[in-house]
């Protein structure tokens, strides 16, 4: 496919009608309609998945690991996101979901909530040890990392250099599974079950390490039906899973599926949790201007209400949220992570980034500042000639972007249907 990029979403050219929904929804104006089909501009896309939400034709596909690809894997390990626990009805407990995953054919199912709690404690330790800079920004949402790299380069140094729970869980599994399960390390493949496509980018193109500890990410949407059917196959096993809970869940950890999940436990720090891509951009702008210096930790998740609002989820996010909150209440606030274990891991830098996150700046109008000034002037002149209807008919999301594309040599004034009419 010609529109294959290193991003986590791809346009299915057969399904794409070339309407403007994804293009208008894109918060970084990374989509254009060219020759009747949507195209994603590699350097501008941050993998937020807004296009996927807005496409009425289901033509935006996530490039996640497909369930059929798993067959060839000798030893399949899965780490489901805690978001998965909110996707089923209230009667379905997390243990049953983990049980169902085992029945589906995963050789090892790893419950992540403990690691989420571990991550929260690590964040707290980091905050205590580093009085500057402020605010620190949590690293969990891979889209926030991309946004900072591309649009807020000066905030790169504000990102807490601790890998997100999914990576640390996979790292722990890699270190221990060959011994515990008696399988060669080379036959182990570890997959995350994800509510968003962006996790795939952080796996294929990690920003803070050479190679991700994960081998892939499976979309909740793709695997939901299989889990659902398996759940209802054998009631007896379900009862057994209730009677023999094999896993210790962390209420705090399960709560990280929701916005504020990382900050809620931080009693002695000033925290702000922001969700949604536009509000995140606003908050990062304020952080960059130095307006949030009195905030210790800024938690940003670009999906509404946090990961629970991910574009690859299946359940209404309000219902899903209420279920997660119910689970958190059921599991309680008790800590399941041993603080001395935690201290050791933290001090050994086991949880840390391999290298700091570096800016990835988008190209200016021209490499030569004098030329760039000329182009900026030309762009303003062009903009005045456009109708400012922002209709998208030219293939750009709005008139301003069309003017920008023209000076960058990627569009022509005649692409605007209104300009043509006036000239004739």
């Amino acid at each position, binding site marked *: 496919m010609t529109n294959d990029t290193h991003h986590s979403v791809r346009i299915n050219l057969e399904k794409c009608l070339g309407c403007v929904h994804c293009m208008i929804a894109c918060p970084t104006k990374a989509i254009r309609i060219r020759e009747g089909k949507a195209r994603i501009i590699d350097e501008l896309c941050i993998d937020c998945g807004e296009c996927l939400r807005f496409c009425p034709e289901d033509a935006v596909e996530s490039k996640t690991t497909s369930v059929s690809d798993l067959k060839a894997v000798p030893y399949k390990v899965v780490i489901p996101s805690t978001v998965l626990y909110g996707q089923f009805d209230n009667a379905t407990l997390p243990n049953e979901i983990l049980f169902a995953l085992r029945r589906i054919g995963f050789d090892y199912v790893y419950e992540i909530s403990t690691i989420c709690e571990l991550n929260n404690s690590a964040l707290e330790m980091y905050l205590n040890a580093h009085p500057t800079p402020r605010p620190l920004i949590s690293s969990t949402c891979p889209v926030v990392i991309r946004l900072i790299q591309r649009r807020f*380069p*000066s905030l790169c140094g504000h990102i807490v250099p601790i890998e997100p729970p999914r990576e640390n869980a996979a790292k722990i599994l890699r270190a221990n599974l060959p011994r515990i399960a008696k399988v060669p390390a080379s036959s182990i493949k570890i997959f995350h079950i994800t509510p968003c496509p962006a996790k795939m980018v952080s796996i294929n193109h990690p920003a803070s390490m050479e190679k991700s500890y994960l081998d892939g990410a499976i979309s909740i949407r793709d695997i939901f039906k299989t889990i659902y059917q398996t759940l209802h196959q054998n009631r007896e096993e379900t009862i057994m899973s209730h009677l023999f809970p094999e896993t210790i869940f962390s209420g705090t950890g399960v709560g990280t599926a929701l916005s504020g999940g990382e900050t809620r436990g931080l009693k002695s720090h000033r925290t702000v949790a922001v969700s949604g891509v536009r509000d995140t951009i606003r908050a990062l*702008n*304020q952080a*960059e*201007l*130095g307006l949030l210096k009195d905030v210790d930790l800024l938690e940003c998740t670009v999906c509404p209400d946090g990961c629970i609002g991910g574009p690859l989820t299946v359940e209404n996010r309000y219902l899903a949220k209420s279920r997660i909150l119910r689970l958190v209440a059921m599991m309680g606030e008790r800590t399941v992570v041993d603080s001395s274990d935690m201290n050791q891991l933290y001090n050994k830098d086991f949880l840390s980034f391999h290298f700091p996150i570096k*800016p990835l*700046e*988008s190209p*200016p*109008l*021209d*490499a030569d*500042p*004098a030329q*760039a*000034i*000329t182009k*900026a*002037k030309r762009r*303003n002149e062009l903009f005045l000639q456009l109708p400012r209807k922002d209709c998208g008919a030219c293939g750009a999301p709005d008139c301003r972007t069309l003017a*920008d594309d023209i000076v960058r040599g990627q569009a022509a004034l005649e692409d605007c249907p209104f300009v043509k009419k006036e000239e004739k």
Partner: protein
Amino acid sequence: MTENNVFRQEFLVKGGDFLRAGNVSWEIRNLLREIGMPSSIVLRAAIATYEAELNIIMYAWEGKLHLSVMPGRIHILAEDSGPGIEDIELAMTEGYSTATLEMRELGFGAGMGLANIKKNTDAFVITSEVGRGTRLELTFLTNGQRP
């Protein structure tokens, strides 16, 4: 410097318009990035412009920000019609503020604005006439050296 290689744009700021506070500095910041100004300078310009924009919103009736970008320098002129500043030296003092309680409740008016502008610019000129308005001239040098 010929007029040919100067980029100019004007931005209107309305007094009391807290809803749009920050929009002009956001736009100027993005423009400077697109023109390819070094990010450390863009950041200083964004911070200083934000303060200038907010000063107009908080204290003036209305004002304009005139941006000029030319090779080697960025110049921003913030001009407002407003009450003006009686004692500029006092106004420049960190922590000194005439902000109302309402403004402070919105999180503004900590008395750092003008000092912050001075800190982030390469040259800063402020003139004011009581009852008429205030004029700020912000200059940033973009070819490496800070005076």
